[in-house]
């Protein structure tokens, strides 16, 4: 598949088939085998978002790291900055899976929540 200037290509992850879908600079979609692929590619083109999963440090010697996730997808371009914020956190209180660890990361409205119990 040749890729013209301004074209955007992504592997669709809506199902295991994994179509290579291209969005042209005029917003035309090709390569998809279904509507889900079209929607996925357009969203990926317009506003790609990801759930960020990471860890934060703790003061607990048995569990030095607490796994966390954002409670909703955040813009892909903010992943590195968000990961840096989580890298500076340290938890010294008991938390349960689902508890908020860092609220409203980078003004996205997304919070990092624990995915495991601590203490």
């Amino acid at each position, binding site marked *: 598949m040749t890729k013209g200037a301004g074209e955007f290509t992504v592997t669709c992850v809506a199902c*295991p088939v994994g179509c290579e879908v291209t969005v042209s600079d005029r917003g035309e979609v090709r390569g998809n*085998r279904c509507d889900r692929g079209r929607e996925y590619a357009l969203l990926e083109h317009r506003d790609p978002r990801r759930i960020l999963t990471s*860890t934060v440090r703790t003061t607990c010697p048995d569990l030095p*790291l607490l796994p966390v996730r954002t409670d909703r997808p955040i813009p892909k371009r903010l*992943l590195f900055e968000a990961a840096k914020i989580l890298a500076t956190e340290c938890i010294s209180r008991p938390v349960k899976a689902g508890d908020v660890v860092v609220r409203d990361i980078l003004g996205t409205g997304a919070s990092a929540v624990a995915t*495991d119990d601590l203490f």
Partner: protein
Amino acid sequence: MESAGRHTHADVVVIGGGPAGLAAAVAARRAGAGRVVIVERDVRLGGILPQCIHAGFGVKWFGEELTGPEYAGRFVKQAADAGAESMLETMVLEITRDLRVVAVSPRDGLVMVECGAIVLAMGCRERPRGALAIPGTRPAGIFTAGTAQRLVNIEGVVLGRRAVILGSGDVGLIMARRLTLEGVKVEAVVEIMSYAGGLARNIQQCLRDFDIPLYLGHTVSRVHGRDRLEGVSVAPVDDRRAPIPDKEWFIPCDTLLLSVGLIPENELSAACGIELDPATGGPIVTDEMETSVPGIFACGNVVHVHDLVDHVTEDGMVAGEAAAAAAAAALASASGAATAGAIAVTTAAAGAMAGAEGGARAKGGAGAGTRTTTMTGTGAGARPAHYSGRAGVPAGEGNGDGTSRISGTRTLGEIRPGSNVRYVVPQRFVQGGERGGGGRTLTISLRPSEPAENVVVEVSAAGKVLRRQRKEKVRPGEMLQVNIDRRTLPSGDGVVTVSIVSR
């Protein structure tokens, strides 16, 4: 000094507390098994899931995307709610054909459990560097991907600054993203095959999202560095997968991750004489997940390496339910077990425990029971009296002519891989059976040998096509499943073949 754990009974013992074992324990309890014990060598349940902090688990089973710790947490709670017990920090040393489990733990010392049924759920381990024979030095900085995942996600170790990943298995791809987000420069993922090993979504979201190059048809041809890794040579491979020297180039790095395959963990199974399938590396199982040894079931990655935990859970549920039924059957007929065989058994069991009391002679002691099995000539001869229910059941093996009697007196049909199918699971099915978790439906899992497009997964028996399922794309990295209506299965000497053919 006397500890309650030393010599005990359980209806179902599950070996391994990962997702397969947890599901089996939950299902066994729900199916009415009395005492269900999970034996786990780690300090906590959950298996490998606690270190898999990324999302993507549970889409099929729970209908939502969970992280590994969340998925594990749900099943740990379900197991506790269902009333399953667990023995943590307990390592199983031996399982026997007469359904005893010998284990050791710091708390209880040597433990012997007599069981109504055993479920193997030991999972798999990583293929190590030694299996690859990469030329070069032996510096620090080379890790298998799963070990790296544990170090980074559980222990908080910083592995290095620049990394190369050999192999495109899912764990390696996940680690490429994780390391990148933690500030490590991932220089390349190098895959010897012409196609990626991991799921398509991981290629996209772990590599392409971060512009990490994936070199297909390439390998690490040499490792450089004396004390610490200083770099790797990478080269394309020829059609015999040998590196082409004059096309080699050097990538400086201090960390090399190996994501080059997983091997079902079957030392216990092999030592017990359970028949293994060379294609999967795991036990040959029936559609009820029973192995060639009656009363011993298996599920999850110990049977074959899965790519989705949801399927592991499904396996575990089938195995647990069937194990509960086997244990109940064993217990029901145990009352009428005052046979010569059962008397011999008691003696053998006493001998075994005498060995166990001796501490260091544990293995010899347990072995005494096994030897009696051989001498009496029946699989159930040395069964402890409490669970001698399946007395007289032959512990035979598949005989290759299409029928086998690997389980009890039921007749088993055989499922075989056909063209472009690397393996199928289950490899046997109970003829006329309607258990196996799916009632009338028999689910066959399979993996293609080679990638292909526009194909049909075809299930046939005695020259008759039972089922055709169209697939746009198949890849060895993605397991396929095909459902068969049991009523269409052959009776008598049944051989079912699963093939992937072009459309």
